[in-house]
């Protein structure tokens, strides 16, 4: 069971929790810059995060220490997940999975949907 602080790291993001989860999930697969993040998220989640929303979430994640910028000679600066970011993402995804499990179980029991 994750600690309250670990859970709070992403739930405290309010309406940015969605983009933040997608960004952290994408960075869990490796370092990426803004455009690569957009394309990766589009490929695994089917949603396209607009540039303004993406950078709003990136700035917030960086200020919270959940991601960090990687030094680069390129104008397209890459970002990577930090250890704190990995813990926060795991806690958040575990919580989401518990909700999903309950929902699917109840659907299967009452609506016959597996």
């Amino acid at each position, binding site marked *: 069971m994750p600690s309250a602080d670990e859970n709070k790291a992403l739930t405290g993001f309010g309406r940015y929790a969605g983009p933040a989860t997608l960004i952290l999930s994408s960075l869990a697969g490796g370092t990426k*810059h*803004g*455009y690569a993040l*957009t394309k990766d998220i589009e490929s695994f989640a089917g949603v396209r995060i*607009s*540039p*303004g*929303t*993406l*950078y*709003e979430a*990136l*700035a*917030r994640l960086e*200020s*919270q220490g959940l991601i960090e910028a990687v030094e680069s000679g390129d*104008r*397209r*600066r890459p970002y990577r997940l930090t250890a704190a970011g990995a813990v926060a993402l795991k806690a958040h995804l575990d919580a989401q999975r518990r909700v999903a499990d309950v929902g699917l179980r109840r659907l299967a029991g009452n609506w016959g949907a597996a």
Partner: protein
Amino acid sequence: MRPGGTPGDPAARAARLLRWYPRAWRARYGDEFAELLIADIAERPRSAARALDVARGGTVARLAGVGLCGFGDRHVAASLATLGCSLAVFLGIGAAMWSQLTIGWQWSRSASTLATVATVTTSAAMLAFLALGALAALLVLAVVAARIARRQGKGLIGPSAVFVAASAILFIGGRHFGNGWPGTGGHRGLVPGGLAAFEWATSLSVSSYWAHPGALAAFPAAELAWMSVSPLTVACAVTAAAKLVRRAELPPRALAIETRLAAVACVVMAIFLAGSCCWIATGGGRPSLFHAGIIDVAGAGVLAATLAVAWQAARTAALRIMEY
């Protein structure tokens, strides 16, 4: 914009979109964000959703820059500085209203119960502002003095000097023009006559005479000059104070105390606004010394707007303090 960019090309369009964001944000994220925009424009040449998203993101970044929303510990100082600026505008307008009421009382009792309630309420609020302002300023000045003494005062000495000079000009000018005030009319007011006169003199520029140039031309030249100089002096003092708060790097404990004072200041602002609305709602009643005009209605609107900004800044500061 990249060299050789034309107004229609993606780089030029990205540069235009980037203008929504404040300078500090552009310094940190500008290059990489422009690259993302250029790639996005190449894929979706026309997108109203993208333009709206960038405009919204830029507005949020600007509001975060002045501490009205956002995250991160630097935002507490920004929130407090913004609250201080809002409070200064509030006090500038509020002092003009209050001085009209208190000066009215120097000449005659008010026949209106609500005008009396307004005078007592706003006077109590002004006293509270004085106490809160003194506490808040002492704390900031103590931290600034300690930093300057430890030779860490880079960026603090200039604003400190401007603040002290502007405050001195306001005090001396207020005393000078307050002393030239017609007098008390022999009636004992609710607040000392000297204080009412000083307040009248410092808020002389908040006047409906600006809309009547003919009447304004009959004013003594020195008084006209003071009406122009005093708001500029107030602006200098407030800007310097805001710079000090942002640059002083107040320790967390000091920020927490300032945030509590800010919350109390918002409550006092609400009380002052309620008191002034009591007065305006009746039109001032008799005698005509207490008359509330259109400028006072507009003033109440400004008070409400500045209270809303101050409240949002205090709320943002309190949320950030809880994260420490």
